[in-house]
């Protein structure tokens, strides 16, 4: 049809330059994010590197069944869920409280911000090294402080029961300040007249925080919460992996570190891909569920 062709020609004339500008980034995403999605087929095949993914033989759900029949499956799922839930419950409110309190500081606000943002720029490797050095049994200053406060021995680093606390506390230390930025920004947008008229009505600071500040940042809180729930099974494996040692594996082996070890270190590609898919699918479901719950409860949602 000549009409269609004319339309297409006009469309192309209007858009080709914009698409040319978008092409490099689009190509990058298609190659490194979408092409691997095709590799998901690996999980359902018995991968043979010589014939590639297409040529390999279909085995259906074999590797998923294999994963769910091992004893490690429940350990890794449990460790992942517990570590994420604990971090969510313990870490999520901290930046919010910090922002609300910082907002009440009259002098030195900028200084406090500069100091508290700084740990965010430290690499994971350095953070974990700091944990290892500070908690070293004989020379660590934190070990000494904890011993003097009545801890029974100096083996914090290798005792599995301390792993989660260490992971979470160091995480709060590193990211509390920086995660608070969004809330601090939302709080500066609060109309000062609201506070003034509340003060005239005799409301004290605590009441004003409760009735003015918290409602003002609630939409931000909900969005951040949805994102946090969506990432519940994707714990920061880079940090977990670094914090692992022979003694704490019973609590520190999470799904993604397990995928890395079986897949890349032991070359069980199909099996590790299956485990990885399980992880991504559960993540996606959690995100969608959290999003729809938030839409119903707070009329705020991500998509």
């Amino acid at each position, binding site marked *: 049809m000549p009409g269609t062709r004319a339309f297409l020609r006009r469309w192309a004339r209007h858009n080709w330059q914009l698409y040319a500008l*978008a092409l490099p980034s*689009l190509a*990058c995403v298609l190659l490194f994010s979408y092409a691997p999605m095709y590799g998901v087929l690996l999980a359902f095949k018995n991968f043979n590197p010589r014939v590639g993914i297409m040529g390999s033989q279909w085995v259906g759900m074999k590797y998923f069944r294999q994963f769910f029949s091992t004893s490690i499956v429940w350990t890794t799922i449990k460790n992942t869920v517990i570590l994420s839930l604990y971090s969510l419950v313990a870490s999520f409110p901290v930046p919010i409280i910090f922002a609300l309190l910082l907002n009440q500081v009259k002098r030195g606000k900028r200084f*406090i911000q500069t100091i508290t943002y700084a740990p965010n*720029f430290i690499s994971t490797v350095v953070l974990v*090294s700091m944990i290892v050095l500070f908690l070293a049994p004989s020379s660590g200053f934190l070990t000494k402080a904890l011993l003097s406060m009545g801890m029974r021995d100096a083996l914090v680093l290798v005792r599995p029961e301390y792993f989660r606390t260490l992971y979470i506390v160091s995480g709060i230390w590193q990211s509390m300040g920086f995660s608070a930025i*969004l809330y601090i920004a939302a709080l500066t947008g609060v109309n000062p007249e609201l506070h003034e008229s509340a003060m005239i009505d005799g409301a004290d*600071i605590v009441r004003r925080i409760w009735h003015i500040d918290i409602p003002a940042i609630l939409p931000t809180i909900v969005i951040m919460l949805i994102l946090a729930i969506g990432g519940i099974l994707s714990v920061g494996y880079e940090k977990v992996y670094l914090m692992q040692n022979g003694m704490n594996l019973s609590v520190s082996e999470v799904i993604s570190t397990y995928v890395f070890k079986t897949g890349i270190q032991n070359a069980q590609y199909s099996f*590790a891909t299956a485990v990885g*898919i399980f992880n991504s699918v559960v993540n996606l479901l959690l995100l969608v569920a959290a999003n729809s719950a938030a839409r119903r409860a707070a009329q705020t949602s991500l998509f």
Partner: protein
Amino acid sequence: MNTSVRAVTRRRHPMRMGASDRAFTICNTALMAAVTLLILYPLYYIVVASISDPSSVAGGDLLLFPPKWFFEGYATAFGYAPLLSGYRNSLVYTALGTAINLILTMPGAYALSRRDMGGRGAVMFVFTFTMFFSGGMIPLYLLLRGLRLTNTIWVMVLPGGVSVYNLIVVRTFFMSAISQELLDAARIDGSSDFGFFFKIALPLAKTIIAVMVVFYAVGHWNSYFNAIMYLNDRSKMPLQAVLRDLLILNTITTDMRVNPAEAAEKMKRADQLKYCVIILASLPVMVLYPFAQKFFTQGVMIGSLKG
């Protein structure tokens, strides 16, 4: 008369507080001071430990000031070859990686900021979908190996070429900073989309370019996991991977055949050396931090405008 005077004084001192507010302010100030100290002290301790003598670091005598100065740790660190090559590699990966990031992100974000781009919604979906779902670690690894990228410099800079989050931040910036009138005016002057992007949009985007340089560069400098996944040669390892060997896996070798006292002394030195290494590794980021802080904050705020 009396009441109006009171009203004036009240307006002049709107901060006159009741007892509960005064108590709150005192507690809050104390808490904020405590939090700031808790965050600052570990950072301070590393700096001081890196210039204190090994025995006092190992013995825990160090609290605020070095009991005895000691600078040999730094001398040793500078002489450690893997550290130097790691430093060099990290500089190369960071510079090249950040350049590629910008070349990919800026034009893509500009195109997607244009409301008149045909099929914009679909293209946007192609990008955002990757934030929520991925093929996973193993398929990506096999792809990179199949492309013969593993164990080359390219594997460190290409796969993360575009961060979709950053792309959205830049797109939001373009949408709010460049008006339709500006584009219309340029069009009347005969400007093409290419011309407009390179001659007008890009020069107006200096702030966001700075934000992106900081975001991407710190990311490259601090990353280690890609290196241990995709690289084999020790000579190609970036700084963070070298640090991991040195600091966490403890590969500073201490020769145990020497007498025990000497070995203990060496252990202490090795421990003290770690503090120097941490400082050297964090130096570039920490030197830039006071300047970069502003950009980071801006980036986070623009990103929150609505992705």
